[in-house]
């Protein structure tokens, strides 16, 4: 019909699925009783969440003095975790928006879970922003609200205020994009519902969707425009996060390379996190026909490309530190690689620069176990990248008398654990109660790419062409 697909293309959906099979396979876990594996996984994430919530509560109650911060290192795990989670939160919108604009059809079976992951990751990031304010109940002071102290407003020249706007816009627009993508699939579940509760709730949120051609035509336009505005949005978010550092005068932070470097790093870590989750989801929910080796390979290729961009950025930073002739800048970088935090630096270099290069081998990038392992390695590396940027740039001040080291307390660690608990609890809830694959989009790319395509339909396709 309208899509001409080359016969040498790998199939996006394997196993000779019909449209009805897609509906059945994806709705199965929404409609069925939770499986034992799901209950165990959900139970563990709830326990992690509860422990983390205790630590976070204690942090809020006592104040951020419970963290291991000192006079010299005023930002450490809090901001490291914030930047790490925001970075991870870039993949969902990137997959659904940028790949939509580039007409990459392989996005269709992974965009839903990637977008959900994005939203949860941004919520995790927000938890650190709130915590590091010290008085989280005054968080609304970061908004331009008329206040009790006269008409004193927020400073719109400050990157920290830009960040408030960027993160909140990103969260709400991503949520909107994700929800609008869910509507047709919620209608599918509504129309299959056998229980009154399911009929009511999925019906309530499916907005009276009927799938008329007029609605679909407008829907396609809406998705395209949302993708068009989300693409610069996603780039702006990490650009602005990087400006929190780049507009300061700290050697190691004050560099113009930061925006592209942070964005590449964000895509890199986000894709790695999507990869980790996909590899688990496809096995747990038996979605091997939808999330195929081809999808995993594509993801690995993006990881290699962005990993290489990040690698070049590391080298460029180092070169510029020397080339600039600024001794403080040079020292900051020599200290990173050879100072007391050398291990963090080399951890970052190994995980982020060397490990993704293994994906040049087709055998490695199509190997599920290796892909899974490396996707975690990449995110370990990206955590260390933020730690290196933040802590090693701060810990050796201009005055050697104020040089210090940072060691985390149980509350630094506990608040980080909280974010994992929150993330996985939300992700498991999503995976149980919402369709993890965008059924409507997958159905729309199946024709001509699904194997064992019925002969009758192939004939009809021919008839239309004439």
């Amino acid at each position, binding site marked *: 019909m309208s899509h001409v697909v080359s016969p040498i293309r790998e199939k996006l959906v394997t196993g000779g699925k019909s*449209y009805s099979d897609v509906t059945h396979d994806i709705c199965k876990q929404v409609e069925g009783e939770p499986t034992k594996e799901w209950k165990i996984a959900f139970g563990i994430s709830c326990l992690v969440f509860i422990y983390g919530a205790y630590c976070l509560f204690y942090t809020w109650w006592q104040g951020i003095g419970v963290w291991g911060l000192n006079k010299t290192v005023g930002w450490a795990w809090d901001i490291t975790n914030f930047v790490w989670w925001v970075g991870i939160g870039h993949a969902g919108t990137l997959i659904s928006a940028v790949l939509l604009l580039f007409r990459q059809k392989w996005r269709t079976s992974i965009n839903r879970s990637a977008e959900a992951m994005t939203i949860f990751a941004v919520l995790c990031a927000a938890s650190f922003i709130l915590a590091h304010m010290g008085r989280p109940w005054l968080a609304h002071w970061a908004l331009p609200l008329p206040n009790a102290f006269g008409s004193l407003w927020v400073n719109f020249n400050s990157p920290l205020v*830009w960040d408030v706007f960027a993160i909140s816009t990103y969260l*709400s627009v991503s949520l909107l994009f994700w929800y609008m993508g869910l509507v047709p699939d919620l209608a599918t579940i509504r129309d299959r519902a056998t229980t009154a509760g399911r009929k009511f709730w999925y019906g309530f949120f499916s907005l*009276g969707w009927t799938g008329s051609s007029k609605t679909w*035509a407008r829907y396609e336009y809406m998705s395209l*425009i949302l993708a068009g505005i989300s693409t610069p949005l996603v780039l702006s978010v990490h650009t602005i996060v990087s400006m929190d550092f780049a507009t300061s005068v700290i050697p190691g932070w004050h560099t113009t390379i930061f925006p592209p470097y942070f964005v590449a790093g964000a895509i890199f870590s986000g894709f790695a996190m999507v990869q980790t989750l996909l590899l688990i989801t496809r096995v747990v929910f038996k979605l091997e026909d939808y999330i195929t080796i081809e999808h995993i390979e594509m993801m690995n290729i993006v990881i290699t490309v962005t990993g290489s961009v990040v690698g070049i950025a590391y080298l460029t930073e180092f070169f510029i530190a020397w080339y600039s002739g600024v001794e403080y800048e040079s020292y900051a970088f020599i200290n990173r690689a050879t100072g007391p935090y050398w291990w963090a630096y080399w951890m970052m270099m190994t995980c982020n620069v060397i490990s993704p290069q293994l994906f040049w081998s087709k055998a490695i990038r199509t190997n599920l176990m290796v892909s899974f392992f490396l996707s975690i390695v990449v995110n370990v590396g990206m955590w260390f990248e933020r730690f290196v940027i933040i802590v090693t740039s701060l810990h050796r001040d201009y005055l050697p008398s104020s040089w210090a080291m940072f060691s985390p307390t149980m509350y630094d660690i506990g608040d980080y654990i909280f974010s994992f608990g929150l993330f996985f609890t939300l992700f498991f809830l999503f995976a149980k109660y919402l369709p993890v694959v965008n059924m409507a989009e997958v159905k729309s790319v199946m*024709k001509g790419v699904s194997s064992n395509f019925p002969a009758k339909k192939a004939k009809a396709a021919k008839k239309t062409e004439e």
Partner: protein
Amino acid sequence: MSSTTNYILGVYDDEDEVLHAVGEVKAKGIKIEDVFTPFPIHGLDVAVGHERTRLPIAAFMFGTLGMICALSLISYTMVFDWPMIIGGKDFFALPNWIPVTFEGTVLFTAFGLVTTFCISNDLWPGNPTLPLDIRTTDDKFVMAINVDKNKVSAADIKKALKDSGAIEVNVK
């Protein structure tokens, strides 16, 4: 869709067949109310005869509104209401305001666009409307023809649907 309306529904099981059938049925002078499908089919809206959507215009206008609102808020607070010297810069420091203005533009565009989309398609939380044939959200493609709006007799409409490849013809 009120229950008093008299619809004839042609059910198809393939997107190419339904797209082809739309042309065939229209050629017989039958006016098609709408076609309901489980996923978007490119060219179907044009074939049915829907006008091109004006959503992009709405989106642009919401974006412009967002930009104006953001710039107005920032310039009011930073220049008029409580001007402060920050880093020796002008009160009217436009380059510094680009990020927040951009975010405002995106925010207004997205929410304005989605709200417009929902209103124009009568989509709202709790809307009890169901498809004429609930299989259209699974794997069937349904062409709905409003008998009252057509001069062609019901029998001829049914025949036309059958001839165009419908696997079922139902009355609702």
